[in-house]
């Protein structure tokens, strides 16, 4: 480790904040400096597409901690400053204001940015994205008076916003080129449930359609044109078509990047003095290669792992990923990595909006998607964390008995880890 300077964290989002905060929890006494491009204090993004958009939103803060927390914990915070380059040989970063700051260790927590829609009319007033507080404020204001909302992209953010918009009786259409909502992330079984559920709320879901143009009238977006020539009217458009990792800082400094900043099992880049965590980091997972996960759990758990290492405790990152999404009355919880599964067993009842999809690969449980069945989810976290085997036959047996599965997971976990 280079000897002088603070631990610098580039990016003051969920992961960056957690690195700083956990360093203090771990008893790290050195200087800690959090540098973030956004002008706000660190905040959470999940409410931006959920509670923060609701009409009766009670104004609960999205900020992770109050300003005085940073003073009390002696965490330096430079908000509204972007790190623009890294001098690895000299061990320093330069910010947009031209300041050069030496570091002892650098943690990259730069997150992702929205993939933008690049079609005629897409830069028009009335076309929104949702990633930052500023985005949510702008979009939220428009939602107050919107009559017809078109959402381009049926991913988590698009579907969460659709649910909120329907609560406010806004005419809502979701368009996607994919064959199912949230198709990249969830199984067909669960996606089909959500398709029906959103339809029952009155959301129009149009799949397998491509948007070719934003219709502009009087300088503002007035609808979208589909490839087929069909026009869908709108007075408000939200684009949610995925994100791109902010990895330029790393690649310009000569670090390996491949759909994210490549790190090893300790979340270290190939430079001993630089780590990467959260949405921007591509970390190794057995049998899947290096992957990037976009979730709060991944951001905070990776942050804690790096903070522990910097404080002298060394452990590789092996946490089981989990994720949630709130859509109207439905709570979706996902544990594990279901990509590449070859078998799905559904327990419970999709008709009653209460079920779990257990996903297997080569006979092993790789993940569970739970809809309003939190007990399955929590049992799954235990099973996967402790590597407790469970066969498809056993899941069949537990299919209608959540408590039995929970008890099995609990007992086996105690045996695995007394």
């Amino acid at each position, binding site marked *: 480790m280079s000897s002088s300077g603070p631990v610098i964290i580039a990016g003051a989002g969920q992961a960056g904040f957690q690195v700083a905060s956990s360093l203090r929890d771990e008893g790290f006494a050195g200087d800690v400096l959090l540098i973030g491009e956004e002008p706000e204090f660190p905040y959470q993004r*999940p409410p931006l597409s959920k509670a923060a958009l609701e009409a009766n939103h009670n104004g609960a803060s999205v900020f992770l901690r109050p300003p005085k927390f940073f003073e009390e914990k002696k965490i330096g915070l430079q908000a509204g400053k972007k790190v623009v380059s890294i001098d690895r040989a000299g061990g320093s970063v330069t910010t947009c204001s031209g300041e050069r700051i030496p570091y002892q260790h650098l943690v990259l927590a730069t997150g992702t940015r929205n993939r933008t829609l690049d079609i005629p009319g897409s830069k028009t007033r009335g076309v929104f994205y949702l990633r930052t507080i500023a985005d949510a404020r702008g979009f939220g204001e428009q939602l107050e008076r919107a009559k017809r909302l078109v959402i381009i992209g049926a991913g988590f953010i698009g579907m969460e916003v659709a649910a909120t918009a329907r609560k406010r009786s806004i005419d809502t259409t979701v368009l996607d080129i994919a064959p199912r909502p949230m198709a990249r992330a969830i199984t067909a079984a669960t996606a089909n449930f959500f398709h029906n559920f959103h339809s029952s709320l009155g959301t129009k879901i149009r799949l397998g359609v491509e948007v070719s143009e934003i219709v502009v009238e009087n300088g503002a977006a007035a609808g979208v044109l589909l490839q087929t020539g069909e026009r869908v009217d709108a007075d408000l458009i939200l684009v949610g078509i995925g994100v791109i990792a902010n990895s330029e800082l790393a690649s310009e400094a000569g670090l390996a990047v491949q759909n994210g900043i490549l790190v090893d099992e300790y979340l270290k880049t190939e430079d001993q003095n630089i780590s990467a965590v959260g949405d921007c980091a591509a970390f190794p997972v057995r049998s899947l290669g290096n992957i990037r996960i976009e979730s709060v759990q991944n951001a905070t758990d990776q942050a804690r792992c790096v903070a522990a290492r910097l404080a002298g405790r060394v452990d590789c990152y092996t946490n089981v990923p989990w994720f*949630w999404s709130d859509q109207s009355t439905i709570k979706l919880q996902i544990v594990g990595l279901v990509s590449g599964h070859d078998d799905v067993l559904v327990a419970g009842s999709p008709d009653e909006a209460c079920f779990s999809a257990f996903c297997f690969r080569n006979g092993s449980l790789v993940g569970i998607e739970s809809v309003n069945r939190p007990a399955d989810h*929590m049992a799954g976290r235990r099973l996967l964390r402790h590597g407790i085997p469970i066969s498809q036959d056993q899941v069949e047996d537990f299919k209608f008995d959540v408590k039995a599965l929970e008890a099995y997971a609990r007992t086996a976990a105690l045996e695995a880890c007394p």
Partner: protein
Amino acid sequence: MPSIILIHDDGTRETLDVAVGTTIMHAVVAAGKDGIVGECGGSAMCATCHVYIDRDQEQAKSLPDVSAVEDAMLDSATAERRETSRLSCQLRVTEAFEGLEVRLPERQL
């Protein structure tokens, strides 16, 4: 503004004024107090806002019942689940909370 009393695991007590309508989780986090993490932001998804609330106290009579989701999540809280366990993100403060004692567990993670 009703005040609630936070009792930390080491026995220290402090009073926290909370605006009506705020959840106990949000109030504690927004005040920068240790003891509650609130990782999921109040969605009853993480169980890192676990607290103990003694039902015998008068103020506890106005608490909402434990929902099925809260129940399942409490089973997986890091600190021991007790009769008195609640998820503080599911408890929205009303005037009737004045003086409510909220005990924080030893660990949330």
